[in-house]
């Protein structure tokens, strides 16, 4: 599939497909502009592109029938969860059929004894954890938004817990996928390991809906730790905070979460989430999981390291509601940044580097930010070497947009040069296509071959993930 082969489908064909879907699905197929607009973009850059119809299937078979129809008619198919992706993943660049999986939202099975579960793609992470209450288990992956598990698998998402529990890559055991020609295929299994053949599960995890539509996911679960303690520590400068993280990771403290917020981000969170008792300084949020004794030991080591880099006293949150408040504030960091300047738009970067390079990468980037004159926050899952800039710009101001784009590109290129990646967890979508080529070079050709083999007509979320 090269650029010339992606063209908008014939409008008459689209009209026929839309009419057919509306006939088959009744109220579950919607062509209202407000609904199409809502389905035309995720968060982040607002370059929206509307699908022609949004349809809400309720079973694997319905999804398969929809994709088969699109395959036969050569009409694009875009899978949609709750629209919280950040790189334009759900924009219908060539129109087509948006498959909203939010009504496929059942937890199909919970196998407490095996520490796994199977869910439909439209289950959100908060819903899953609510349903796990009482089992003593939890699902740790937590991107900021309350995303769907299907969307999280498709973007290979992670979150604040990844430093301890891994990303979707480590936690998806198997999938049910509707392929581009409308077959329902099951990949992976429930065994904790397997050497049987190609690892198709990991092929579809992170494929951003360009190879098929994920409809069911088998997930790993974990026991809720006996003791959980969260702490906040503030630093006089950014270097102190970042160096604390690097030393902690090199020491091998099994910290469950370690999050950095720079002074601007902390200021935004204090205002948006009404946090009390903190100052607008570079800040780390920690969380320790384990036995009472284990948590005590981990936190004592962490304090010793933090003291060396000028960290403040730890402010502890051990009550569940205090911890929830703290992490809710962290998860709302993106919205808190947007609220700094009402009406502005944000783009988010997602650099991730080997841990020893983290301080260089963040400090050089902070200097870039100061030169840019833009309002930018830094927030990150620094335990993994991953951090985000949220860059605000006036949507009508071409100069600001240009400077924002330049800043974002610089941080991505810096990460790649340091042996890291332009995206730790957000994905490529269509905003980072050129960076994928920078990062992977020749390997992108192989990706194209896979795309062509699995989606010969190029109907699956066209224009995303792999440059044409």
């Amino acid at each position: 599939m090269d650029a010339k082969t992606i063209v908008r489908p014939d409008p008459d064909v689209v009209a026929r497909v839309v009419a057919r879907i509306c006939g088959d699905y009744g109220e579950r197929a919607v062509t209202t502009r407000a609904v199409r607009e809502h389905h035309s973009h995720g968060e982040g850059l607002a370059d929206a592109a509307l699908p022609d119809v949004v349809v809400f299937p309720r079973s694997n078979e319905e999804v398969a029938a929809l994709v088969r129809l699109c395959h036969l008619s050569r009409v694009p198919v875009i899978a949609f969860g709750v629209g919280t992706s950040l790189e334009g993943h759900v924009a219908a660049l060539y129109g087509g059929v948006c498959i909203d999986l939010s009504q496929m939202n059942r937890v199909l099975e919970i196998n407490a004894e095996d520490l796994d579960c199977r869910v439909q793609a439209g289950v959100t992470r908060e819903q899953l954890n609510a349903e796990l209450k009482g089992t003593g288990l939890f699902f740790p992956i937590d991107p900021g938004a309350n995303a769907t598990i299907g969307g999280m698998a498709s973007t290979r998402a992670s979150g604040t817990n990844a430093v301890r529990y891994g990303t979707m890559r480590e936690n998806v055991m198997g999938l049910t996928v509707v392929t581009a020609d409308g077959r329902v295929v099951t990949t992976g299994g429930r065994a904790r390991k397997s050497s049987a053949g190609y690892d198709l599960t990991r092929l579809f995890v992170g494929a951003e809906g360009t190879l098929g539509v994920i409809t069911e996911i088998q997930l790993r679960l974990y026991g809720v730790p006996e003791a959980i303690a969260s702490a906040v520590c503030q630093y006089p400068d950014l270097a102190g905070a970042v160096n604390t993280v690097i030393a902690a990771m090199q020491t091998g403290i099994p910290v469950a979460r370690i999050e950095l917020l720079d002074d601007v981000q902390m200021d935004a969170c204090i205002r948006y989430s009404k946090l009390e008792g903190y100052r607008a300084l570079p800040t780390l949020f920690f969380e320790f999981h384990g036995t009472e004794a284990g948590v005590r030991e981990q936190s004592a080591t962490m304090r010793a390291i933090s003291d060396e880099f000028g960290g403040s006293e730890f402010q502890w949150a051990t009550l569940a509601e205090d911890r929830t408040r703290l992490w809710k504030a962290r998860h709302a960091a993106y919205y808190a940044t947007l609220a700094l300047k009402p009406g502005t738009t944000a783009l988010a970067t997602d650099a991730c580097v080997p841990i020893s390079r983290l301080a260089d990468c963040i400090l050089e980037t902070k200097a870039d930010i100061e030169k840019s004159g833009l309002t930018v926050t830094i927030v990150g899952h620094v335990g993994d070497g991953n951090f985000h800039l949220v860059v605000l710009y006036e949507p009508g101001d071409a100069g600001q947009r240009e400077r924002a784009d330049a800043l974002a590109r610089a941080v991505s290129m810096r990460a790649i040069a340091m042996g890291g990646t332009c995206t730790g967890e957000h994905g490529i979508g269509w905003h980072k296509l050129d960076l994928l080529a920078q990062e992977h070079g020749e390997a992108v050709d192989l990706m194209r071959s896979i795309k062509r083999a699995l989606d010969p007509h190029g109907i699956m979320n066209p224009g995303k993930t792999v440059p044409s």
Partner: protein
Amino acid sequence: METHLADFIRDTADGRDAESILRACVHCGFCTATCPTYQLLGDELDGPRGRIYLIKQMLEGEPVTATTALHLDRCLGCRSCETTCPSGVRFGRLLDIGHRVAEQKIERTVGVRVRRWLLRKGLTHRRWFGLALAAGRIARPLLPRSLAAKVPASRPAKRWPPPRHERRMLLLEGCVQPALAPGIDAALARALDRVDITLVRASGSGCCGALSDHLGAHDEALGYARANIDAWWPHVERGVEAIVVSASGCGVVVKAYGHLLRDDPVYADKARRVAALARDSVEVIAAEWKRFAPQVAMDHGPQRVAFHSPCTLQHGQRLVGDVEEILEAIGLELTPVADSHLCCGSAGTYSILQPELAGELKANKLAALEAGAPDVIATANIGCLIHLASAATCPVRHWVEIFEGRLRDLPRS
């Protein structure tokens, strides 16, 4: 959110208001989780974020369709989303603007228009409503059950105290309450009389304007506001301390008079002053609490009360927990109420215009209120009171009536 308002509204007061509200929204969606209609229907467009999109499109000049009207009409206007929103989006104001624009642009069928007109005229004119209610009560045995449930039994008021104090406060009597439940304001007047305050009923004041505004008749609403200001003004000039409103749904509107009439050269200043004087009954009673406390009879025996805080009290006026505190202080046992932030479905004329949704919300609300087996349900707004009483298994009263009933008998002089 980025917005580009269309020419017809860009340079108007409403346009500027709408633009600043739309810009404040960051689309986080925290509001959808607390929206009663989103909980029932699960449709993005039946939650605040979806409705913000719809209003934005309308104000950007997109055609207004029946779908737009449907989803806006289904909004209760409860403003639960405002309480939740971390960005301070004033959804209620945006919705009012949305309703006004939709009303101009949408073609409603003749039947619907007549129905909405009748509601406006019938409910907001005290005398017509009183006559209709009296007729309804006489004909009650003949009415179909669904209609009969909407006609509450008569509970006449006890006496009004004579006007004998130097301290004076005005009362907003409103439109339907004097006919439906005259006992509430009489109880409020007797209670305030105990702390040497005379509650004055100004002739010429009437409906606050809320019903007209919610039904898209903005100018009519402004007319009501001006009439009330005219009726109150002589008293305001003579130095009344406050304008007391016992229906929280009306109180929230009187408190917004300053905003509603901000561009009226004749009334803007007066409206601001009136709005600043407006108080819910709980604010007045709480302020005089030290003088009430010794008069409370604590020997009435236990009574279990479930309090339903009207949306206009907790979300609209942000008076949270005050009534509950007073009810506990007078020796009542408050039963726990789940999901107390959710609307009961009354919402002005909503219960009449959206009977299915209102019915579901009422059933959910009553289940939550009655879960703790209360002897009585208390609330603070006439709309909620009538709506809940039509299906509750225990009596539903305005909390002021309960409060006044707990004050010690006065020594006969």
